[in-house]
């Protein structure tokens, strides 16, 4: 950043040096990452398409056509129909609502909670830190997928429960990162200055610490979105997650599993590609955010 500030006047001759805010610098660097920008566009379009499904889907979500049965992808049914004659494109869009909702909600809850725990642990230190970090360690050693499956059986397999249970297993990654960042940040002079001028601890954490580590937090949030979408689809695929009549992409693949190697194997592709594409976009956005928040990381 200092480099731009020094170089710019010489490059522009006698023109006034242009001062850029952090936000402008961030935006400029993010837009340089073309793949991330394309990913944002695709993800937004995808999300709109899924949530506008009642308006744009070619068929109704509950439509069955038992006489039609399973037909291969064609002009009317772009992704074909399953054995019950349900249009796969329509199902894909409606299933996307659940998959995307779970992905984003889990990331949001896990990030907020993890940031709070990490910031408190890092800022207060000593016994609070010890207790909270040992607690996060515990969550890292339990067999996650198994505990998830058991918890879902316990609390019921609805989307709200899936969101809450997944969030309780994802927050500690954010907490660890935030704690590390806070530890190095709290010794800085501007924090000292805030403390000296009498700011309360809450104010220091919320106004001075968090805004300075928003980069790593956002990057971790994208990782959580990706992990949540994949974990949810895995659980639903195994029959341990979202239950019919609700459908996520994982459920669609669970239905399609039996058709592997038969004439209906086309049912396998669309839901899998939907997951792959979504997670790929989310990961690229995370990559772009990392470069934008931390210009030094571009070196590798």
């Amino acid at each position, binding site marked *: 950043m200092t480099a731009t500030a020094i170089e710019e006047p010489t490059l522009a001759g006698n023109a006034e040096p242009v001062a850029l805010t952090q936000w402008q610098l961030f935006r400029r660097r993010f837009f340089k990452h073309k793949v991330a920008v394309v990913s944002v566009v695709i993800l937004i379009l995808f999300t709109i398409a899924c949530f506008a499904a009642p308006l744009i889907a070619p068929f109704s979500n509950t439509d069955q056509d038992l006489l039609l049965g399973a037909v291969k992808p064609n002009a009317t049914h772009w992704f074909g129909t399953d054995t019950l004659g349900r249009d796969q494109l329509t199902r894909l869009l409606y299933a996307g609502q659940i998959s995307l909702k779970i992905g984003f909600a889990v990331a949001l809850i896990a990030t907020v909670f993890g940031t709070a725990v990490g910031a408190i642990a890092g800022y207060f230190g000593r016994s609070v830190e010890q207790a909270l970090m040992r607690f996060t*360690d*515990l969550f890292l*050693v*339990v*067999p*996650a*997928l*198994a*505990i998830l*499956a*058991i*918890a879902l*059986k*316990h609390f019921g397999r609805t989307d709200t429960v899936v969101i809450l249970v997944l969030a309780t297993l994802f927050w500690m990654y954010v907490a660890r990162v935030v704690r590390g960042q806070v530890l190095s940040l709290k010794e800085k002079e501007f924090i000292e200055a805030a403390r000296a001028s009498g700011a309360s601890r809450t104010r220091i954490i919320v106004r001075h610490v968090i805004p300075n580590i928003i980069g790593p937090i956002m990057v971790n949030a994208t990782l959580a979105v*990706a992990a949540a979408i*994949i974990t949810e*689809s*895995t659980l639903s*695929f*195994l*029959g*341990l997650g979202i239950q019919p009549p609700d459908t996520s992409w*994982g459920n669609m*693949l669970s239905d*399609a*599993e039996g058709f*592997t*190697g038969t004439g209906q*194997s086309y049912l*396998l592709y669309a*839901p*899998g590609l939907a*997951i*792959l594409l979504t*997670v*790929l976009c989310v*990961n*690229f956005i995370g990559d772009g955010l990392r470069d934008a928040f931390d210009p030094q990381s571009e070196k*590798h």
Partner: protein
Amino acid sequence: MLTYISRRALYSIPVILIATFLSFWAVRSTFDPTAKVRVSRTGARAAEQIRVRLHLHDSIFEQYGYWLGDAVQGDLGDSERTHEAVGTMMTRAFGNTLQLIGWGVLISALIAVALGVYSATHQYSKLDYTFTGLSFVGLAMPAFWFGLIAIQWLAVWPKETFNLNDPIFYSVGLHSGDQSGMFNLDYVRHLVLPVLTLTVLTIAEWSRFQRASMLDVMSADYIRTARAKGVPRRSVVIRHGLRNALIPLVTVVALDVGALFGGAIITESIFSIDGMGRLFIDSINAGDVQVLTAWVVVTAVFIVAFNLLADVLYGVLDPRIRLS
């Protein structure tokens, strides 16, 4: 060194106790061991017998104490589903899963190191971009979907297209009916697809990690020194570079072995392999409390053990960690 190891090991004991207690508590509070007998005519009495046998009248802490006491003496109880001893079922399942995980770790590590080193020594080359691109796809790929696609294209498609009697790679189990043993073609043909499914994610993750770690090491001063005094390039890369760049990967691999248990649940379910993953799914669907309890506890111990191994290996390979 010994103090370092024993300090780490001692620290793992409370972690194991608490993690296994939480797992135990999760199972016991979710499933009712008496659910199945209560519906029958003599239900009330049978249910009471079970309650007494499993100490269900006591607090959860005491229940855990009793269970642990039996468990360390090798008694994990009997399955309500198959009426077999849980210990026997677990040993059999664990053996099959360990084969999967063992081959998976070995193959992923070899491929990941090769890809990572190549990418780092040929940074920004076409192949480097290709590998990086593929690793992004690998990281975004749901493993179970990859497994289904692999069955479709590597097992079913060649068989139908070339009219073969058997598929080249099998998609069910670890052996054909009349075969057994680990060193024959039949075993390999059964193993290829599940191991491939299990390793997609780890290869993608580890190769990216290895690339970053290798790039880090290769820009160190001692590498420049080695180059300057005329050490051959091959020797710089392997003896000075790779040996140091492997240290962080070893830790990641040991930590990920636990995560591979999750992967095994998926892989075994798709490829009908009689391992820990299948055992878990069958037991959760049947509400088989004794098996589930043993399952989560044994897995938690396994994960903690590998975390400990990661710590110890890190200390062995990098003395700076051990001494700090």
